[in-house]
């Protein structure tokens, strides 16, 4: 059933990836719904374990999809399962795009509240990872956007769950913390689905990619399946060039010889899916 569904939805990974799917315990997300009775998302996909990037342009339905999957929004259809077994609400963690904190409260009080109500099995690890020790006595209202995001992440990272649904977890974080959070995504749980608008983040962290357009999946598959053609961004002084190529090494060498410094290499197909 899993493979049939993937093929129906235009899984782009090719025969080799389809065969590897047999060895994975797949995560199924099958949801439909929206706001005030209007159908915004109607999507079903299966991905393998570890990290999945949910990508797509603004307004494509990524946030609504995660909200439906997390059970935050009433759904016309909702199923989140691992190998046919339903994932219970207590086995699922969800990070919204923003919010969850009251500006009048202290960081310590907010974290304590969520730890008491939802659980905080990994609170020490989360506090350490996100560098929150020195912020504990601060009022939420006095924090910067990035600092707030760290507290919001700590609430979800403190939970030990099977499936994590994270809506733009890196929003507002500095470079150092972004890397730390990206590394942490792999340690969080067996299934992590996160949204992002940055191709390089997908390249760094994800094994699987689900692209959404108009509330439906336009691509479901392994990131490797998108790496046939690359985009190289390179700089020479104030001049920035972006070139597409099938042979990354040769093109990078050519650019270096012309005095350019390669800044980023990403999948051309991935970029198209994200815009």
């Amino acid at each position, binding site marked *: 059933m899993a493979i049939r569904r993937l093929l129906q939805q235009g899984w782009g990974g090719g025969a080799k990836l389809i065969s590897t799917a047999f060895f994975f315990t797949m995560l199924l997300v099958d949801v439909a719904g929206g706001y005030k009775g209007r159908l915004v998302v109607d999507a079903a996909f299966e991905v393998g374990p570890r990290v999945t990037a949910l990508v797509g342009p603004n307004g494509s339905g990524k946030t609504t999809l995660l*909200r439906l999957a997390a059970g935050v929004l009433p759904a016309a259809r909702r199923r989140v399962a691992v190998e046919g077994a339903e994932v219970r609400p207590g086995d699922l963690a969800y990070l919204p795009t923003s*919010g969850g904190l*009251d500006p009048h*409260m202290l960081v310590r009080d907010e974290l304590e509240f969520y730890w*008491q*109500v939802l659980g905080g099995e990994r609170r020490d690890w989360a506090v350490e990872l996100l560098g929150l020790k020195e912020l504990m006595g601060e009022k939420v209202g006095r924090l910067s956007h990035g600092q707030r995001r760290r507290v919001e992440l700590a609430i979800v990272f403190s939970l030990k769950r099977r499936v994590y649904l994270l809506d733009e977890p890196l929003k507002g974080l500095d470079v150092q913390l972004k890397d730390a959070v990206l590394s942490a995504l792999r340690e969080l749980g067996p299934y992590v689905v996160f949204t992002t608008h940055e191709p390089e983040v997908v390249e760094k962290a994800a094994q699987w990619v689900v692209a959404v357009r108009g509330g439906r999946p336009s691509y479901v598959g392994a990131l490797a399946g998108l790496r046939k053609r690359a985009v190289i961004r390179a700089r020479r002084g104030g001049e920035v060039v972006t070139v597409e190529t099938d042979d990354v090494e040769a093109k990078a060498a050519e650019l270096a010889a012309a005095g350019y410094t390669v800044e980023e290499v990403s999948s051309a197909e991935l970029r198209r899916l994200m815009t």
Partner: protein
Amino acid sequence: MTTAPFVKRAWKVGRAAYGTTFAITLIAGLGTALTFAVVLATIRPEDLIEEASRLPHLPLEVAYANFKALFIMLTAITVAVMAGAVAAMVVGGSIQSDSRNGVYEVLFGNGFAPGQLAKALFYTAMSAATAFYLLSVALTTLVIVLAAPEVWPILPAAALAALASVFSAAALILAVGLAKPQLFKIRTGVGATQNLAYLLALLPSMVLTFVIIPFLISLDVETATIVISAISAAVIVASIAAVLLAPRFLNKEELIAHGD
């Protein structure tokens, strides 16, 4: 187990967000009680001669005693309206700010069931109702002690009316907050600001206030006690029903809408 953090949070958030309004409303309640006490202490039987003359079957002393008793009833209900408003602000303010700040989205998304939320907020509402009910009864008792110690027999009916006022305010704001949180949105027009949620929550206590006024003219304590007690009991039963039914109509979509 999960209710205690909610009760603590509601009081903390409510106090921080609406501290000034709390203080003003409580001062207004105290001021009202003291004003009523002064009125009761200064009024004399001869001040009621004209009113008693309309009721020839009522001796002046009885008319005077009845007036005092009914005035105490009015005091109890008026103070309870303010106490109910503050209790509603603790519960409603907590629901409003948690909804606006995305707290419910985090809770629902991480496995916290709507039923658990309704239960936790019910305890929050009861904590606010109990605290401010006791305060309103204390203020009414203070008025009786200071100005009309002979009207103790009216206290049970006055206390029941106060209970109905405060309990209905806390219960209805909870029911509205869970089922129709969009009513918290403040609508402004030319010279008018409207918040339907608080208006609905305070409606029963306003009805009780208006019901007592005609009895201040007829000076019929017996009928007033029966009518006020019956309405109070009905209000309490209706409020319990609203609280019990609210979780069934919990509106997740609006609660996570981050609106004002």
